[in-house]
């Protein structure tokens, strides 16, 4: 069983957490997320031009790059994480150019070697899958696709073709960390997606509080939280691990217990 399958096979919804690599003490922060109860970790690859991100993650990208974070640093962080945490799925999330600049085969091989389970590339839609997808799949790394409120029924099969790991439902047409979608629209969307795929469905964008997360967890297989963690790192700098762990725990408790409360 893959790490993703194991993480989503637990009899409770999963907490998927995002932080940006190289922003703050990343190794300590990753450990704090795991200790706090995160089920899946997304590690953002910083990019100079993060077009799909809101102010919080944009700023994290710039902080990381200003410290000189390189792609080699990110793979070193990932490989060290895999040594310390053999079971927690690790996803690299970012933009096409840093992922493909040395060739997709190179990137896929580095992912496999570092123990990265999946990749989310924001700006490679299914139409451009050849850019990255075949290399990842050949290397045994899952390509995690995004579905959005604008993904209609006609497109959905293309989005799912070649997708692995889990399906990430971007619940608002917008950028990361700002407005939250209406609960009813999320329920409808997840129900629609579940009829089209056997992949677990995780819901993200705009989820910042345990209450929001718990509400979504009642209907989804996972809840993704990013900007709220990034804000904690922005506030606490290199000493963010303790507050990150505490916040992770409140989210994990809310999400993990959501379906029991519902029943």
């Amino acid at each position, binding site marked *: 069983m893959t790490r993703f399958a194991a993480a989503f096979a637990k009899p409770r919804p999963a907490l998927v957490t995002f932080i940006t690599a190289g922003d703050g003490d990343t190794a300590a922060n990753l450990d704090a997320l795991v200790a706090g109860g995160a089920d899946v970790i997304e590690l953002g690859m910083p990019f100079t*031009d993060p*077009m799909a991100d809101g102010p919080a993650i944009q700023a994290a990208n710039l902080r990381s790059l200003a410290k000189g974070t390189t792609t080699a640093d990110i793979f070193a962080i990932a490989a060290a994480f895999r040594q310390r945490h053999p079971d927690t799925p690790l996803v690299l999330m970012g933009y096409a*150019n*840093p992922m493909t*600049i040395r060739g997709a085969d190179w990137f896929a091989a580095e992912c496999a070697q570092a123990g990265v389970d999946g990749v989310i590339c924001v700006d490679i839609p299914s139409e451009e899958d050849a850019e990255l997808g075949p290399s990842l799949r050949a290397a045994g790394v899952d390509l995690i696709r995004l579905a*959005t409120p*604008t993904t209609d029924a006609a497109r959905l099969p293309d989005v799912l073709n070649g997708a692995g790991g889990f399906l990430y439902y971007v619940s608002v047409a917008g950028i990361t960390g700002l407005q939250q979608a209406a609960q009813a629209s999320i329920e409808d969307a997840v129900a629609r997606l579940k009829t089209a795929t056997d992949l677990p469905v995780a819901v993200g964008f705009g989820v910042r509080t345990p209450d929001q997360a718990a509400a979504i967890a009642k209907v989804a297989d996972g809840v993704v939280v990013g900007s709220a963690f990034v804000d904690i790192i922005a506030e606490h700098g290199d000493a963010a691990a303790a507050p990150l762990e505490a916040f992770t725990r409140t989210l994990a408790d809310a999400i993990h217990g959501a379906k029991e409360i519902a029943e």
Partner: protein
Amino acid sequence: MTDRPNSLRTGPDDRGHFGAFGGRYVAETLMPLILDLERHYRAAQQDAAFKAEFERLLEHYVGRPSPLWFAERLTANLGGAKIYLKREDLNHTGAHKINNCIGQILLAKRMGKTRIIAETGAGQHGVATATVAALFGLPCTIFMGAVDVARQQPNVFRMKLLGAEVVAVESGAKTLKDAMNEALRHWVANVHDTFYIIGTVAGPHPYPELVRDFQSVIGNEARAQILEAEGRLPDMLIAPVGGGSNAIGLFHPFLDDAGVEIVGVEAAGEGLDKKHAASLAGGRPGILHGNKTYLLQDEDGQITEAHSISAGLDYPGIGPEHAWLHDIGRVRYEPVTDAEALASFQKLTKLEGIIPALESAHAIAAAERIAPTLGKDKLMIVNCSGRGDKDIFTVADALGVEL
């Protein structure tokens, strides 16, 4: 003409690729929207009424056709090829930018969109967009880097007079590429009612194609005008290239004419070994802003800042069709530095009484370099893509003159 075998004018393919370049590298949220834009554009291409309205506005609002001016004194001064200037500087709003804005706002209207957004660097595309938005009575928001807002106050005021909201973008380096990032972020959150008027032949397919098509009026006119004036096609075309919309507009109708040599001019800034904006000479292929093309970037694929004295050329990428024309060798791209452009800006002003935009001055500088090496029987068309009134403060500053 477009279904001729072996033509260089048939691109892009149905997935928006020019050879290895172009494509649709956008977030899933935008993908259905750009597919919808493509469907509407295909329908518009088949619609005689759309074409007629586009041509009516170009003639009576923009003031086309723009003249093809024989620059007799410049020609005599250089002592070589006969130089004609395509006078895009005489268009309404002072540059070629308006051609594309007219076409795109007609598409926006056709699609039932009720808000217009655009990015701008120096403000020329922002002014052209705000102009057509005023003409069509649509609300308009222009994204402009905060650094550019500070150094281009006259254009900011123009846009506001035209009724546009100008958003100063504080993210990243606060210049053109960041303005484009912010426009994309805004678009993704407002896809239902908003049309994004991209200002150059870049971005996701079908933008590079449709902007080229709207700008091809430049080359189509120039072709007819040179045939009228000289009875034959030119030996060479020269145009400045930032994103490359004025250049592709001039070049595209001539791509299949093997006897016409074509030269694009990139901004070499302080020199190719220093800060510059020459993506072909100093960059390599990568993916940014929805398309694959040559980009200024480091070994990890992080985008590096461009520099040119000309704000319109100050962008770290280039349109994907240019990247392809470069790779297949149909168009030759040459660098021109800030200093060379500045000298040509003054030379053209004094010899012809035409103050060119600093963008256009790059093409003039290349013409100065090349014309003397060609015989007096050779014909050259140089795109005077815009007028230089907007640049007088920059030029005064560079010359150490206090206004």
